[in-house]
């Protein structure tokens, strides 16, 4: 299908030290870059929608209670072209997610790093809403 063989690149994320190109779509009006969540949970649902995919996670707290979280990822149209689809993260998949929390303290986060149980990082798209790329200086 792809006529040119692309370079498939795993992002060994340097993200938090890089001034984010993704800091748009009124990001600052929604998420707090100072509130970094580290969540370990299992996938309960994937909202495979535009403009952003939302992964629903059940996170078990230390006291055994389970809390539901919604984590924002990238655009499904971009992910589809990289071979991901709705079934790529089946219900029950264990994930470790680093995310910026919503500013109003609700159980919403913006995914920065997504790692599987075996430590492999997966790229679920940046929350950059895909607008024009930024030129170098």
């Amino acid at each position, binding site marked *: 299908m792809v006529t040119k063989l692309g370079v498939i690149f795993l992002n060994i994320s340097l993200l938090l030290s890089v001034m984010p190109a993704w800091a748009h779509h009124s990001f600052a009006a929604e998420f707090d870059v100072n509130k970094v969540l580290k969540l370990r949970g299992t996938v309960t649902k994937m909202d495979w929608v535009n403009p952003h995919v939302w992964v629903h996670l059940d996170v078990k707290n230390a006291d055994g209670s389970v809390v539901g979280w919604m984590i924002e990822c990238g655009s499904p149209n971009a992910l*589809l072209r990289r071979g991901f*689809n*709705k079934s790529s993260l089946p219900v029950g998949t264990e994930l470790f997610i680093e995310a910026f929390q919503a500013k109003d303290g609700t159980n919403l986060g913006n995914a920065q790093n997504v790692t599987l149980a075996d430590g492999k990082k997966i790229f679920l798209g940046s929350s950059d809403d895909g607008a024009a790329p930024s030129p170098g200086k």
Partner: protein
Amino acid sequence: MDHMGKPLKILNGAIAVAATMAFSSLLTDPGLAQTLSSAYKAPRLPGTANPNLNGLWEAVNEANWDIQVHGAQAGPPQFGALLAQPPGPGIVEGNEIPYQPWALAKKKENFENRLVRVKYDELRLLPLDPEAKCYLPGIPRATYMPLPFQITQGNKKIIIAYEFANASRIVPLEKVGPAPVDSYMGWSEGHWEGDTLVIDVTGFNDKTWFDRAGNFHSDALHVVERYTPTSPGVLRYEATIEDSKVFTRPWKMSFPLYRRLDKDAQFMEFNCVPFSEELIYGHLRKTTSK
């Protein structure tokens, strides 16, 4: 007849011409033509064996209010007759939609609450009617919304662009495999059966309605559409609806589509997203404090 003179000859000639013309027009009368010979043969898409469906089309019926036969009904009182429901003969063959019992109850609930705001989750308080929210209308509803749509028919693919919310879909005229993802407008695959364009649509999500009356479906919806030219400027549209989660059997709708012949008719923009914002975000608007 020579002895009758010139005026009568002219009259005879005129009668003969008139008779010929009358006879010819009988032959082109669509009803008679169908009886006498094969069905209407539309002009071809040049270079292909298929009829040319290119152009701006529109349904003329009240199905968008309610696809079944229905009488007039009051609308929200503050809008008087503007949003009152007009009567319509319906487009459902047999006028029955074979809902499973649970689904019939849900359809009634949809109808009662179509403009009432319902809590979807912690963030969203929305009316049920997807049209009011300017959501993509889905198939077959897009076909009978009271707005035109443009068929651009190529030799390998067709684009159908609907004015409502600029909903569009691409219909490849070849096998496309299963839908990679669910969508509002479905995943279409087209082919020709004689002069009928057949479009097989799968891969729907469950977020659209068939009309404003709350007739609905699940993500198991499967639609097979047929577009057949029946006379210049008219297509017969048929859609077979199948959804094993909601209906007890397949059912069918059909109605004519008319070519827009107004001199300046063209595909125009109806981006209703800004018009729907107050309805869907209004509960999150800042209210001035006392």
